[in-house]
Protein backbone atom coordinates (compact mmCIF):
# COMPACT_ATOMS: atom_id res chain seq x y z
CA UNK A 1 0.00 0.00 0.00
CA UNK A 2 1.19 3.48 -0.85
CA UNK A 3 0.88 6.28 1.72
CA UNK A 4 -1.16 9.32 0.75
CA UNK A 5 0.25 11.87 -1.67
CA UNK A 6 1.25 15.28 -0.31
CA UNK A 7 1.60 18.82 -1.42
CA UNK A 8 4.78 20.89 -1.40
CA UNK A 9 4.36 24.54 -2.35
CA UNK A 10 1.48 23.61 -4.62
CA UNK A 11 3.17 20.58 -6.17
CA UNK A 12 1.59 17.19 -5.53
CA UNK A 13 4.12 14.46 -4.82
CA UNK A 14 3.79 10.74 -4.18
CA UNK A 15 7.25 10.04 -2.82
CA UNK A 16 8.05 11.48 0.58
CA UNK A 17 11.79 11.18 0.10
CA UNK A 18 13.95 14.02 -1.18
CA UNK A 19 17.39 12.76 -2.10
CA UNK A 20 20.75 14.42 -2.63
CA UNK A 21 22.99 14.01 -5.67
CA UNK A 22 26.37 14.24 -3.91
CA UNK A 23 28.99 11.79 -2.65
CA UNK A 24 28.12 8.80 -4.84
CA UNK A 25 31.06 6.68 -5.99
CA UNK A 26 30.12 7.21 -9.65
CA UNK A 27 27.48 8.97 -11.78
CA UNK A 28 25.92 5.63 -12.69
CA UNK A 29 25.61 4.64 -9.04
CA UNK A 30 23.93 8.00 -8.39
CA UNK A 31 21.43 7.39 -11.19
CA UNK A 32 20.66 3.86 -10.01
CA UNK A 33 20.21 4.99 -6.41
CA UNK A 34 17.94 7.90 -7.26
CA UNK A 35 15.79 5.67 -9.46
CA UNK A 36 15.60 3.05 -6.72
CA UNK A 37 14.60 5.70 -4.19
CA UNK A 38 11.56 6.64 -6.31
CA UNK A 39 12.24 10.23 -5.24
CA UNK A 40 10.61 12.96 -7.26
CA UNK A 41 12.75 15.75 -5.83
CA UNK A 42 16.55 15.86 -5.92
CA UNK A 43 18.86 18.43 -4.38
CA UNK A 44 21.54 20.11 -6.46
CA UNK A 45 24.06 22.88 -6.00
CA UNK A 46 26.14 25.37 -7.98
CA UNK A 47 29.75 26.41 -8.18
CA UNK A 48 32.00 28.75 -10.07
CA UNK A 49 33.41 26.97 -13.06
CA UNK A 50 37.07 26.25 -13.34
CA UNK A 51 38.76 25.43 -16.62
CA UNK A 52 38.66 21.72 -15.81
CA UNK A 53 35.07 21.58 -14.55
CA UNK A 54 33.28 22.54 -17.77
CA UNK A 55 32.82 19.00 -19.02
CA UNK A 56 31.81 17.55 -15.66
CA UNK A 57 29.20 20.31 -15.30
CA UNK A 58 27.73 19.35 -18.66
CA UNK A 59 27.67 15.66 -17.79
CA UNK A 60 26.05 16.31 -14.43
CA UNK A 61 23.37 18.47 -16.02
CA UNK A 62 22.61 15.78 -18.62
CA UNK A 63 22.36 13.12 -15.91
CA UNK A 64 19.94 15.02 -13.71
CA UNK A 65 17.88 16.01 -16.75
CA UNK A 66 17.53 12.34 -17.62
CA UNK A 67 15.95 11.64 -14.23
CA UNK A 68 13.00 13.98 -14.78
CA UNK A 69 12.90 14.95 -11.11
CA UNK A 70 12.05 18.33 -9.65
CA UNK A 71 15.17 20.23 -8.67
CA UNK A 72 15.75 21.72 -5.24
CA UNK A 73 18.92 23.85 -5.39
CA UNK A 74 20.73 24.56 -2.15
CA UNK A 75 22.87 27.37 -0.78
CA UNK A 76 25.39 24.98 0.76
CA UNK A 77 28.54 26.51 2.16
CA UNK A 78 27.08 29.97 2.84
CA UNK A 79 27.91 31.52 6.20
CA UNK A 80 26.03 34.81 5.89
CA UNK A 81 22.56 35.92 4.88
CA UNK A 82 23.93 38.06 2.04
CA UNK A 83 25.98 35.19 0.65
CA UNK A 84 22.97 32.86 0.77
CA UNK A 85 20.70 35.43 -0.88
CA UNK A 86 23.16 35.94 -3.75
CA UNK A 87 23.50 32.19 -4.20
CA UNK A 88 19.72 31.74 -4.19
CA UNK A 89 19.31 34.38 -6.90
CA UNK A 90 21.91 32.68 -9.09
CA UNK A 91 20.32 29.27 -8.43
CA UNK A 92 16.96 30.57 -9.58
CA UNK A 93 18.46 31.58 -12.93
CA UNK A 94 20.58 28.48 -13.30
CA UNK A 95 17.94 25.89 -12.46
CA UNK A 96 14.87 27.86 -13.52
CA UNK A 97 13.04 27.30 -10.23
CA UNK A 98 12.01 29.48 -7.32
CA UNK A 99 12.47 26.61 -4.89
CA UNK A 100 15.52 27.05 -2.68
CA UNK A 101 16.91 24.90 0.12
CA UNK A 102 18.21 27.70 2.27
CA UNK A 103 21.33 26.80 4.20
CA UNK A 104 23.08 29.48 6.21
CA UNK A 105 25.64 27.88 8.46
CA UNK A 106 26.76 29.33 11.75
CA UNK A 107 29.43 26.90 12.84
CA UNK A 108 31.95 25.01 10.76
CA UNK A 109 32.42 22.22 13.32
CA UNK A 110 28.91 20.81 13.32
CA UNK A 111 27.55 22.75 10.32
CA UNK A 112 24.78 24.07 12.53
CA UNK A 113 22.42 26.54 10.85
CA UNK A 114 22.70 30.15 11.99
CA UNK A 115 19.12 30.92 13.11
CA UNK A 116 19.50 34.69 12.98
CA UNK A 117 20.98 34.81 9.48
CA UNK A 118 18.46 32.21 8.36
CA UNK A 119 15.54 34.39 9.41
CA UNK A 120 17.14 37.44 7.77
CA UNK A 121 17.70 35.64 4.47
CA UNK A 122 14.29 33.95 4.52
CA UNK A 123 12.50 37.27 4.87
CA UNK A 124 14.26 38.78 1.85
CA UNK A 125 13.93 35.71 -0.36
CA UNK A 126 10.21 35.31 0.37
CA UNK A 127 9.74 38.98 -0.53
CA UNK A 128 11.47 38.18 -3.83
CA UNK A 129 9.05 35.34 -4.54
CA UNK A 130 11.19 32.37 -3.57
CA UNK A 131 9.64 29.21 -2.15
CA UNK A 132 11.99 28.75 0.76
CA UNK A 133 12.87 25.37 2.27
CA UNK A 134 14.94 26.43 5.29
CA UNK A 135 17.41 23.97 6.71
CA UNK A 136 17.04 24.81 10.39
CA UNK A 137 17.57 23.50 13.88
CA UNK A 138 14.70 21.95 15.82
CA UNK A 139 14.19 25.11 17.91
CA UNK A 140 10.45 25.72 18.20
CA UNK A 141 10.65 29.51 18.37
CA UNK A 142 12.90 29.69 15.32
CA UNK A 143 10.51 27.44 13.40
CA UNK A 144 7.54 29.59 14.41
CA UNK A 145 9.38 32.70 13.18
CA UNK A 146 10.13 31.04 9.85
CA UNK A 147 6.49 30.01 9.51
CA UNK A 148 5.36 33.55 10.35
CA UNK A 149 7.56 34.84 7.52
CA UNK A 150 5.66 32.66 5.07
CA UNK A 151 7.57 29.37 4.88
CA UNK A 152 5.14 26.57 4.09
CA UNK A 153 7.89 24.00 4.51
CA UNK A 154 10.50 23.65 7.26
CA UNK A 155 13.41 21.24 7.32
CA UNK A 156 14.79 20.84 10.84
CA UNK A 157 17.85 18.69 11.32
CA UNK A 158 17.72 15.28 12.94
CA UNK A 159 21.45 15.52 13.65
CA UNK A 160 24.37 17.40 12.10
CA UNK A 161 24.92 16.90 8.36
CA UNK A 162 26.66 13.68 7.44
CA UNK A 163 26.79 12.25 10.95
CA UNK A 164 24.17 9.53 10.51
CA UNK A 165 23.28 9.81 14.18
CA UNK A 166 19.53 9.67 13.65
CA UNK A 167 17.09 11.80 15.63
CA UNK A 168 19.15 13.27 18.45
CA UNK A 169 16.21 15.11 19.99
CA UNK A 170 12.94 13.34 19.16
CA UNK A 171 11.16 15.33 21.85
CA UNK A 172 11.92 18.61 20.04
CA UNK A 173 10.80 17.17 16.71
CA UNK A 174 7.60 15.83 18.22
CA UNK A 175 6.94 19.23 19.77
CA UNK A 176 7.39 20.89 16.37
CA UNK A 177 4.86 18.53 14.86
CA UNK A 178 2.34 19.24 17.62
CA UNK A 179 2.82 23.00 17.67
CA UNK A 180 2.96 23.48 13.89
CA UNK A 181 0.28 21.06 12.70
CA UNK A 182 -0.40 22.79 9.38
CA UNK A 183 3.20 23.13 8.25
CA UNK A 184 4.98 20.70 5.96
CA UNK A 185 7.90 19.31 7.93
CA UNK A 186 10.82 17.28 6.62
CA UNK A 187 13.72 16.01 8.64
CA UNK A 188 16.84 17.10 6.79
CA UNK A 189 20.28 15.87 7.81
CA UNK A 190 21.50 13.31 10.27
CA UNK A 191 19.46 10.35 9.08
CA UNK A 192 21.72 7.30 9.14
CA UNK A 193 19.52 4.28 8.65
CA UNK A 194 15.98 3.49 7.53
CA UNK A 195 14.74 3.07 11.11
CA UNK A 196 15.69 6.73 11.79
CA UNK A 197 13.46 7.73 8.90
CA UNK A 198 10.64 5.51 10.15
CA UNK A 199 10.88 7.16 13.56
CA UNK A 200 10.55 10.64 12.04
CA UNK A 201 7.64 9.59 9.83
CA UNK A 202 5.83 7.93 12.75
CA UNK A 203 6.15 11.24 14.61
CA UNK A 204 4.12 12.78 11.81
CA UNK A 205 6.83 14.35 9.69
CA UNK A 206 5.77 14.72 6.10
CA UNK A 207 9.01 13.69 4.49
CA UNK A 208 12.75 13.09 4.72
CA UNK A 209 15.67 14.68 2.94
CA UNK A 210 18.86 12.66 2.96
CA UNK A 211 22.00 12.06 0.96
CA UNK A 212 24.97 10.56 2.80
CA UNK A 213 23.12 7.55 4.22
CA UNK A 214 22.39 6.35 0.69
CA UNK A 215 25.47 7.61 -1.15
CA UNK A 216 27.90 6.09 1.35
CA UNK A 217 26.14 2.74 1.75
CA UNK A 218 27.94 -0.29 0.38
CA UNK A 219 25.09 -0.68 -2.09
CA UNK A 220 23.49 2.75 -2.58
CA UNK A 221 20.65 1.55 -4.83
CA UNK A 222 19.64 -1.12 -2.35
CA UNK A 223 19.81 1.36 0.53
CA UNK A 224 17.73 3.85 -1.45
CA UNK A 225 15.08 1.18 -1.91
CA UNK A 226 15.23 0.42 1.83
CA UNK A 227 14.68 4.10 2.67
CA UNK A 228 11.85 4.36 0.19
CA UNK A 229 10.04 1.42 1.79
CA UNK A 230 10.82 2.62 5.33
CA UNK A 231 9.50 6.12 4.70
CA UNK A 232 6.35 4.74 3.17
CA UNK A 233 5.91 2.35 6.11
CA UNK A 234 6.44 5.12 8.66
CA UNK A 235 3.89 7.34 6.95
CA UNK A 236 1.36 4.52 6.67
CA UNK A 237 1.80 3.87 10.40
CA UNK A 238 1.22 7.53 11.20
CA UNK A 239 -1.88 7.65 9.02
CA UNK A 240 -3.16 4.39 10.54
CA UNK A 241 -2.74 5.76 14.07
CA UNK A 242 -0.17 4.27 16.39
CA UNK A 243 -1.65 2.78 19.58
CA UNK A 244 -0.95 4.65 22.82
CA UNK A 245 1.67 3.28 25.20
CA UNK A 246 0.37 1.71 28.43
CA UNK A 247 2.06 1.08 31.76
CA UNK A 248 0.15 -2.12 32.46
CA UNK A 249 -0.10 -5.25 30.36
CA UNK A 250 -3.40 -5.98 28.67
CA UNK A 251 -4.17 -9.41 27.22
CA UNK A 252 -4.61 -9.48 23.50
CA UNK A 253 -6.53 -12.76 23.50
CA UNK A 254 -10.18 -12.36 24.58
CA UNK A 255 -11.20 -14.25 27.71
CA UNK A 256 -14.74 -14.94 26.44
CA UNK A 257 -15.31 -18.58 25.52
CA UNK A 258 -12.24 -19.75 27.41
CA UNK A 259 -12.70 -22.77 29.68
CA UNK A 260 -14.37 -21.60 32.87
CA UNK A 261 -11.52 -22.72 35.14
CA UNK A 262 -9.13 -20.38 33.20
CA UNK A 263 -11.55 -17.41 33.29
CA UNK A 264 -11.58 -17.50 37.12
CA UNK A 265 -7.82 -17.90 37.61
Amino acid at each position, binding site marked *: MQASSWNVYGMELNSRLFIGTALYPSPQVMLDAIKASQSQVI*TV*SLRRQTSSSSDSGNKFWQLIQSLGCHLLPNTAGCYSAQEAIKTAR*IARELFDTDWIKLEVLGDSYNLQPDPFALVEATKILIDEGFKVFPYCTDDLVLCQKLADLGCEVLMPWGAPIGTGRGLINPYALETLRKRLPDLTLLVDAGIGKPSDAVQAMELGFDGILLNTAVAEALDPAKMADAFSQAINAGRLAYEAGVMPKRDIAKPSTPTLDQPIWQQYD
Partner: protein
Amino acid sequence: MSSNDRHKISVMVNGKVMSLDNDVSVLDLLQLLEINNRRYVVVINDEVSPKSMYGMTELKQSDRFDIISPISGG
Protein backbone atom coordinates in the same frame (compact mmCIF):
# COMPACT_ATOMS: atom_id res chain seq x y z
CA MET B 1 52.55 51.92 -19.86
CA SER B 2 52.57 51.27 -23.62
CA SER B 3 49.84 52.61 -25.93
CA ASN B 4 48.45 49.06 -26.25
CA ASP B 5 48.08 48.71 -22.47
CA ARG B 6 45.86 51.80 -22.31
CA HIS B 7 43.22 49.84 -24.27
CA LYS B 8 43.32 46.89 -21.94
CA ILE B 9 41.39 46.18 -18.76
CA SER B 10 42.00 43.66 -16.01
CA VAL B 11 39.06 41.43 -15.22
CA MET B 12 38.90 38.59 -12.71
CA VAL B 13 37.57 35.68 -14.76
CA ASN B 14 36.55 32.62 -12.73
CA GLY B 15 39.01 33.68 -10.05
CA LYS B 16 41.96 34.42 -12.36
CA VAL B 17 43.08 37.82 -13.62
CA MET B 18 42.73 38.25 -17.38
CA SER B 19 43.79 41.19 -19.51
CA LEU B 20 41.06 42.04 -22.04
CA ASP B 21 40.31 44.69 -24.62
CA ASN B 22 38.37 47.50 -23.00
CA ASP B 23 35.33 47.06 -25.25
CA VAL B 24 34.92 43.33 -24.78
CA SER B 25 31.34 42.16 -24.20
CA VAL B 26 30.10 39.19 -22.20
CA LEU B 27 29.37 37.43 -25.48
CA ASP B 28 32.91 38.09 -26.75
CA LEU B 29 34.41 36.73 -23.57
CA LEU B 30 32.25 33.59 -23.66
CA GLN B 31 33.47 32.97 -27.21
CA LEU B 32 37.05 33.66 -26.19
CA LEU B 33 36.75 31.18 -23.33
CA GLU B 34 35.16 28.62 -25.69
CA ILE B 35 32.34 28.00 -23.26
CA ASN B 36 30.37 25.01 -24.47
CA ASN B 37 28.27 24.44 -21.36
CA ARG B 38 24.71 23.36 -21.82
CA ARG B 39 23.72 25.12 -18.62
CA TYR B 40 25.41 28.06 -16.99
CA VAL B 41 24.79 31.52 -15.65
CA VAL B 42 27.12 34.49 -16.02
CA VAL B 43 27.58 36.45 -12.82
CA ILE B 44 29.32 39.83 -12.84
CA ASN B 45 30.23 41.29 -9.46
CA ASP B 46 27.84 38.85 -7.75
CA GLU B 47 24.88 39.87 -9.91
CA VAL B 48 23.32 37.63 -12.54
CA SER B 49 23.88 38.96 -16.04
CA PRO B 50 20.71 38.56 -18.18
CA LYS B 51 21.30 36.32 -21.22
CA SER B 52 19.50 38.75 -23.49
CA MET B 53 22.11 41.40 -22.64
CA TYR B 54 25.27 39.35 -23.25
CA GLY B 55 26.04 41.12 -26.54
CA MET B 56 25.46 44.58 -25.10
CA THR B 57 27.11 44.21 -21.70
CA GLU B 58 30.70 45.44 -21.81
CA LEU B 59 33.11 44.45 -19.11
CA LYS B 60 34.82 47.12 -17.03
CA GLN B 61 38.13 47.38 -15.24
CA SER B 62 38.22 45.20 -12.07
CA ASP B 63 34.96 43.40 -12.83
CA ARG B 64 34.58 39.94 -11.35
CA PHE B 65 33.23 37.65 -14.07
CA ASP B 66 32.12 34.18 -13.05
CA ILE B 67 30.52 31.33 -14.92
CA ILE B 68 28.35 29.32 -12.56
CA SER B 69 27.48 25.71 -13.38
CA PRO B 70 25.35 23.02 -11.75
CA ILE B 71 27.06 20.55 -9.46
CA SER B 72 25.87 17.77 -7.18
CA GLY B 73 24.53 18.75 -3.78
CA GLY B 74 22.87 17.38 -0.70
